[in-house]
């Protein structure tokens, strides 16, 4: 042990704690105060409950995030499984293919989808050129466009936890199942799939919670037709200047996100991140 605990705290943790107090906890606390209004009360929250626009947007945000989560899980599972069944070299290549988008800025990836999905974009040109549709489809400025973009952006967050849980499965369990006469489908449904569920749950939470707060992708791919909670908050502050309402919405979103993560902390294995 080196030095006294108090001195260690001050020297090692002090600078970070000070920064977080001033530029992180204080701003969040100020939002709480703003949402309560003057004199402090829950009136703003009461108004939120009867605000049709807010409720519509809240439901839409949940719906988009839920749909994105389900598609991500379905798309992620095969890739995660493949990663456990190929040589180290192929797995390294696939990992890079998964991680590269993960490292690319959200803005760049959203831009790519705008270029692809616009009225005279590549996807429409292909669809019309191949004779699948007669006229270009409306692929963006709607929920479908937002969903496509968000799935691609959040997919790595689904693949990685599922892959981690698949990797943790003891190989001998498969061998045992095989010796006991289980076919490949039975092995998958009775052994692999149940044991991968913690990873699936972690993936679902990571994608869903992030999806709830998304701003850039819905704002660009959805535009004014697909307003999500984050976009509503932005317009309340920058256009309507209704700070109490925007702060109350922020608190609702924050409590939902923190609540979901906190209640599933064991599944997410935040302890295990510290490796």
């Amino acid at each position, binding site marked *: 042990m080196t030095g006294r605990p108090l001195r260690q705290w001050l020297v090692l943790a002090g600078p970070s704690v000070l920064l977080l107090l001033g530029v992180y906890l204080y701003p969040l606390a100020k939002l709480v105060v703003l949402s309560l209004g003057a004199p402090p009360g829950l009136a703003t929250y009461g108004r939120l409950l009867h605000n049709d626009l807010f409720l519509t947007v809240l439901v839409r945000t949940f719906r988009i995030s839920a749909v994105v989560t389900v598609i991500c899980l379905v798309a992620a599972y095969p890739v995660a499984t493949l990663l456990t069944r190929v040589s180290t070299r192929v797995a390294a290549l696939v990992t890079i293919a998964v991680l590269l988008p993960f490292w*690319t800025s959200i803005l760049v990836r959203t831009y790519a989808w705008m270029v692809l999905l616009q009225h005279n974009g590549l996807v429409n040109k292909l669809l019309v050129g191949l004779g699948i549709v007669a006229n270009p489809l409306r692929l963006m400025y709607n929920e479908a466009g937002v969903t496509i973009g968000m799935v691609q952006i959040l997919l790595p967050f689904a693949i990685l936890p599922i892959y981690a849980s698949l990797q943790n499965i003891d190989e001998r369990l498969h061998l045992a199942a095989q010796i006991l006469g289980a076919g490949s489908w039975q092995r998958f449904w009775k052994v692999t799939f149940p044991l991968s569920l913690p990873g699936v749950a972690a993936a679902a939470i990571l994608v869903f919670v992030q999806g709830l707060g998304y701003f850039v992708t819905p704002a660009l791919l959805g535009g004014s037709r697909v307003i999500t909670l984050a976009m509503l908050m932005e317009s309340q502050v920058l256009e309507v200047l209704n700070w109490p309402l*925007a702060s109350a919405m922020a608190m609702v979103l*924050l409590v939902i996100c923190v609540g979901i993560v906190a209640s599933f902390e064991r599944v997410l294995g935040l302890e295990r991140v510290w490796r």
Partner: protein
Amino acid sequence: MALILRQAHPLLWLASAVVLAFLILPSVIVIGMSFSGSRFLEFPPRALSLRWYAAYWSDRAWLNATLRSLQIGGLVTVIAVTLGTLASLAVSRRTLRGRGALRALIVSPLVVPSIVFALGLYSVFATWRLTGTMTGLVAAHTVLALPFVLLNVGAALYKLDPSLERAARISGAGPVRAFLFVVLPVIWPGIASGSIFAFLTSFDEIVIAMFVAGSSPTLPKVMFEGIQFELNPIVAAVSTQLILVSTVALLTVEWLRRRIAQRIETDYTTQETAP
């Protein structure tokens, strides 16, 4: 154990290939389009040219924003790595009380939706006159970068044998000397990957910049404005350069990760010690 029963089914390959193509293709197409010679973006480009790159490199507004983002990213990296490394030392001291709370506090910004954090900062920065200043953005981005430094440095520290540092202290080295000559040589890959994470977190950040950057925009903010109402083709050239940066960052971090894993195996047999 490589077991015969774990082979990748052709259908699994097919499904994975479709998903991987969905992940990678948008970026590939943007890269292709950025070399387009015509006035509009097209893929595949009919004539190749570097006109959009030339346009970017000769445009004051784009270059100023890039320079600003580089400066902010550089400052964020230095501050976040310093504060984060100190804090990880505190968290890694197993006898220190409150280490769990400290880690939870530093990691918690990952769970807070960026729009909520941005709203809080916007309200506080207005009264502190930090809107539009570099100080404000650097402080805010440092909050977002700290979790990544803590996780990366923490991962490296976790694998460091605490008896090495104790041995150095018993042999008469002060805490600073013990850190510089015993701890640092082992954990530097963690610090290096933490720096890369910290830099990109700031360099790609858009939501907070939209609220508090004021009239001196960062590169992501200029990009956002360039694609919100019309698809400015310069953004394709900027995106391609950003994808290049991400690729280099990803490959470096993967290389560092391997180094951390290797060091654990070699270090405790060859015992690197202070000169």
